[in-house]
């Protein structure tokens, strides 16, 4: 289990993290989302032991990560922009990882050659961005990590390779109980793979739930009310729009509870629709003064 408890980090005068707290259950696929500059990458760099916390704790299985080789051996990390030694080939990097990580599985590495058909002797810097990402995934999975940390992992990959990689990772999660923490702006894709989601904003956790809880807790309602009838007063409305007689509301609360309340005022028509992760993200952050604004050009 990954625990980030009350984490603070400042860069000069800028506070990147302001008491961030997250809990990632073991064996889950956790989506870390947030607007640009929310502190996602900073949080990930703490989780991988790159940054020293100014305050708070970052624990994996109850042990601190920073300067703890024993814990870091269990973690594989694929950043947004992957790094390989200049001039290094796939073979060189595999040899390096084999020396650094006791858990490196050479047999698995060879087997993965089928899934990631990359030239072993070509310098990695000659590969395209997508091919470099494939190389990073092949190496990371070969480490047999207990925790895999991904920052914008599938940027640059084609749809087939994306599906293949997610399939591989999810099978690792299912078979070995690997924990995956993934940060991405591609919420459509996260919705397909994540079972837990944390939304962070300005260095703090805004919301952290399982995806099903999150979707159960917010609904979209379309309704038409009779002339002169008002909405129930105790609705938690996050957003409202109107086209003719049809009103569209984003409401916080469970669908059963909201159905009962709306039915009580006798609407001419009403329908409850589930929200996508992207909509949840937009409306949650709208309440935190990060709403979509009309741009006038």
């Amino acid at each position, binding site marked *: 289990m990954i625990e980030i408890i009350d984490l603070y980090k400042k*860069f000069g005068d800028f506070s990147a993290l302001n008491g961030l707290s997250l809990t990632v259950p073991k064996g889950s696929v956790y989506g870390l989302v947030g607007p640009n500059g929310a502190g996602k990458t900073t949080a990930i*760099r703490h989780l*991988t*032991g*790159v*940054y*020293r916390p100014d305050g708070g704790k970052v624990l994996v299985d109850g*042990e*601190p990560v*920073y*300067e*703890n*080789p*024993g814990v*870091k*051996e269990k*973690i594989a*990390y694929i*950043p947004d*922009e*992957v*790094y390989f*030694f*200049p*001039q*290094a080939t796939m073979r060189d990097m595999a040899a*390096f990882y084999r*020396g*650094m*990580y006791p858990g490196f599985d050479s047999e698995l590495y060879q087997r993965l050659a089928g899934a990631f058909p990359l030239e072993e002797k070509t310098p990695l810097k000659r590969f395209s961005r997508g091919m470099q990402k494939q190389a990073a995934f092949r190496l990371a999975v070969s480490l047999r990590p207990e925790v895999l940390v991904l920052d914008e992992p599938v940027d640059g990959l084609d749809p087939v390779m994306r599906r293949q990689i997610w399939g591989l990772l999810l099978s690792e999660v299912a078979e070995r109980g690997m924990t995956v923490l993934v940060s991405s702006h591609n919420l459509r894709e996260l919705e397909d793979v994540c079972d837990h989601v944390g939304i962070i904003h300005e260095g703090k956790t805004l919301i952290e739930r399982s995806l099903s809880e999150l979707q159960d807790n917010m609904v979209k309602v379309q309704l038409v009310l009779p002339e002169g009838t008002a909405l129930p007063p105790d609705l938690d409305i996050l957003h409202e729009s109107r086209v003719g007689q049809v009103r569209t509301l984003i409401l916080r609360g469970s669908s059963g509870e909201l159905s009962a309340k709306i039915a009580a005022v006798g609407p001419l028509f009403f329908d409850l629709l589930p929200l996508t992760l992207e909509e949840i993200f937009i409306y949650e952050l709208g309440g935190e003064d990060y709403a979509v604004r009309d741009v006038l050009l």
Partner: protein
Amino acid sequence: MNWEVRTMRSGMSFFNKTIYLNCLRRFWPVWAGLTLCLVLMLPLPAMNMRYASDVETLFLGVGSYGGIVFAFGFSITAAMTVYGWMYQTRSTGFTAALPLRREGMLLSTAAAGCTMLALPGVIAALLGLLAAGGVCGFSAAAALAGGWLGRWLLLALCFFGFATLCAQLTGAIWVLPAVYVLLNVGVAVIWYLIANVLELLLPGYAGEVPRLALTLSPVVRIFMFYWAESPFEDWAGLSGYAAFGVLCLVLSLLLARRRRMESATDTVAVSWLKPVFRWVFSIGFALCFANFLYLILMDGEAYRYVPMAFFLVLGGLLGWIIAEMLVRKSYKIGSALKTFPILAVLLIALVAFCAFGGLGYTGRVPDAESVKSAAISFYSYSCVTDDPAEIATIGELHRELADASVKEDGMDIFITYTLKNGGTLRRRYAYASLSEEGKAELRQFLERQEGEAISLWLSEPDRTIHAGVSEYKNGDYTRSFELGEERCRDILRYGVLPDMAAGTLRAVSGWPFDPGYAGDEEDCFYLEFETWVKGEAGYGYNRSEYDVQSFRVTPAAENTWAMLEKAAEEWEAVKDSYSPEY
């Protein structure tokens, strides 16, 4: 409880073989290039040598001085490669996420850097041994090659340790070599720049670089140490420098453990050093800028306080702004100039200090009772004395110079006292500060001293070891040749001494304002005797290894003239032979 207590150390904490071998494999061009340089410097030339003395000169001379240059240059190259991961955000992210503690990373990469320097040295020494063994025998060659290797390893440890420390201070790879060079020479250079300002503004200031400034500038000190004292067998001295390198490595380890990876690309990586950098950079920039502007705009004229103050403040302001931009990595410096007025006041205070005589510095004359010996030098004259009466005379001249302290840039008089408490006091004043009586007294004093020195020299012709002769004929120098020990002693005994006794020849130590001193159109020989005087009293203030006595020989000095004419003819006959002396 902090992270250091909560985390466990393991075998991976201090050394990682994979990192070590990876560095050696990836950066092979560095150590291969160094090997090539060292082989070209030592074994290859040794193969073509025929004499043991040549091989010895190769190992002790070229090998030692070249060793300093290569150790200095390749240490920073090795540091830039093995610590290069600290200077990019991507590489720091990759490396810091590896299952390895910071000290393990530093020690593994430092070990690789040391190997990159040591291995080429061992190869060059072994090849040198084989090449030199055929010339001077293997036991002598082993001593030479072994000695050279020992010196190389100690110097490499010194410079690489220092480069490692510099690597921890910055987060930008382009800054690293600049920091390395500046810290190696920085204190001496800053002191030199301050001394230059004081020489221009403070009457009496004699411009000396203190030993501490040199000691804090390792490469300057090591070069001077080698050249001045030839410490080929001074293993204690060299070991001291190597110990300094080890100390730098230890400090680097302490800094590396606390290093923040987010400092990659920062000019200054250690947060508490940022104000230090701002101040040192600004002061250094102010001094460079002011000295440069003063040189080109004031035409070398001394004692222009207001322009110097203006140049210093302007330079300080520019330096402050540049330093701030470097620290912030931005052209916007915001409110960074808030504390600049403090620097401006300090720079103006430096000028004011000079303008007001350095708070008594200019006028300070020690009591005669407190002086052990005194020295005075002017133009080519110099003398040192421990006679109380002569010390008193120098003190009187000093007092007159200090009281007047005419601010004229021209010929200077240097006075140095060695005090009974072990201290020294050295001053420099303009000759123009003396009254006419004072000038006459100074001349009389120095010529008496010079006369005594010449008499002493003339009484011991066997000290003379060499002479150089230049013939001046029809308004031009026609030929120059050198005289060996026996020949020049003969000319001294049977030419110079009789001619001096006859009054037709005198030493050219000459008072600079005498008419005709600088020579005229008459044909002559310029004869310069070199005399071994190291450690001897009475041979002038400057007790270097050699003293020189010069003569301008005209036909009036019949004996010397005839001997030199004959020597010139003989030289013509043998001038194409191997030896330049005969």
